[in-house]
């Protein structure tokens, strides 16, 4: 009996020694491992814009060779042509793809060159009041915009606590080509961008070294059902 009890004590002591030893070894190893891998800065930071980049202009100028020209400086001596026409001269880079609109003077005033036109009575309308021109055709969208279902918002949803910013039509839409142009999407999720880990320690790289996976199936949960196929790299 005594010897069994003795062995039990010995075993218990061995386990205790093992625990203490493990604690020390693990602590030393983990601290050494942390020192080995300094974080690597990202190669390409993701740039996000948290507000529209264009500002609303009160008046329009032509910027050319560091000079500012007013519209009237050219148009005063050019003939007015109300017919549908090509863009020429300084406007040749423009493209008019705005529904069925084909003529300049649908929106621009015929004689007051730096102003828009109010389609109700033909009177001039300042550029910063362009919303009241757009609304003449886009009534339903204007209503949505006014009550918050259309357009970009920012700041505070609770107007009692702070200012709410909302963008006007031409800040997001180019009035000559109002449809949004296609843009490049940001990288897909799950891809280590740049490296926060040291490159060799990147979890996906680690797996990727040994395994080559088939194309990711198109499921909602993504790469959940991936059939792995082992690539023979053990010979090296």
């Amino acid at each position: 009996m005594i010897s069994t009890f003795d062995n039990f004590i010995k075993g218990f002591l061995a386990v205790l020694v093992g625990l203490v030893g493990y604690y020390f070894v693990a602590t030393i190893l983990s601290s050494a491992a942390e020192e080995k891998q300094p974080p690597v800065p990202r190669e390409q930071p993701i740039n996000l814009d948290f507000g529209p980049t264009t500002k609303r202009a009160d008046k329009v100028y032509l910027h050319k060779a560091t000079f500012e020209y007013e519209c009237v400086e050219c148009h005063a001596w050019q003939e007015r042509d109300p017919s549908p026409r090509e863009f020429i001269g300084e406007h040749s880079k423009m493209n008019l793809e705005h529904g069925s609109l084909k003529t300049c003077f649908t929106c621009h005033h015929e004689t007051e060159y730096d102003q828009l036109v109010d389609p109700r009575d033909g009177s001039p309308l300042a550029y910063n009041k362009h919303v009241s021109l757009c609304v003449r055709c886009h009534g339903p969208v204007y209503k949505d915009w006014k009550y918050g279902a259309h357009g970009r918002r920012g700041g505070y949803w609770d107007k009692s606590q702070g200012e709410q910013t909302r963008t006007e039509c031409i800040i997001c839409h180019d009035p000559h080509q109002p449809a949004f142009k296609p843009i490049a999407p940001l990288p897909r999720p799950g891809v280590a961008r740049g490296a926060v880990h040291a490159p060799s320690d990147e979890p996906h790289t680690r797996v990727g070294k040994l395994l080559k996976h088939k194309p990711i199936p198109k499921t909602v949960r993504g790469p959940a059902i991936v059939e792995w196929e082992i690539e023979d790299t053990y010979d090296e």
Partner: protein
Amino acid sequence: MSDSNDLIQIGRRSFLKNASVAVAGVSGTVAALSPLKEVVGDFDVESWLQQHYHELSEDEMKDVLARLEAEAKETYGTDIKVRDVKPKEDTKFAYALNLGVCVGCRKCAYACEKENNVSRSPGMQYIRVLEMEKGGVNLETANHQYEPETVPKPDKYYMPVQCHQCDKPSCVKACPVNATWKEPDGIVVVDYNWCIGCRYCEAACPYWARRFNFEKPQLPKEEINPNTSYLSNRPRPVGVMEKCTFCLHRTREGKYPACLEVCPTGARVFGNLLDPKSEIRYVLQHKRVFVLKEEVGTVPNFFYFFEAQS
């Protein structure tokens, strides 16, 4: 005397026998315990003894917040502010998203990642943008790994999915330790210090809105958002669940969530469901909204609508 006799009687053979047993015991124990090293990490008595969020008094909460700030300083080397932002009265948050104008640029997902201090590697974003076939809402053929040169593709539409803050949240029912619950303003939150990491909630969620920290969160020091709150975007430990909280540290102070502010097409609408003049109420009253997976009965507070505007 008998004790000393016993000691003397240990011969070479018995010593070797016992020593080999001891060595086997030690190595066996080390091998058996080695996975624990990954799980336990830096053991902290105070966080281990911390009470549930609902049982913390104000003074205890102050200590906890100070401790979390110190931990973040030690881990990431930067000063952050951890607050406990309480819900506002007469507020219930809801979200609407116009699928007719979403272009699938994924800016919302990255703005969210930045705002909420989500681990950058492996990238587990709260918002997944699904590329869908036009003509129906078919999640079986949806793809969230799309990588075209430009979006939108003409034959596709894009559906961002994040936490729907359901009124009958299946994730809350699934949690065995009450580490996740629904706040009075409708946000489903997680107490990261109470979560045991069983991932039942992730399995229960029909929208795949919950994420698990398999690794210690990787955050570059210069990209950490210092404005944090206990229940939302404070730095998380490894092995806990986390999720979208509609940026409650922003929205409970009247601001818009980050995903809405960054959206270049203005597809997102956010507001207080209890305010009849709010933007979200206008959308619910005037648009044909639908919810995703209505048949599962979770009653989400996240609405989609199609509005081809001109």
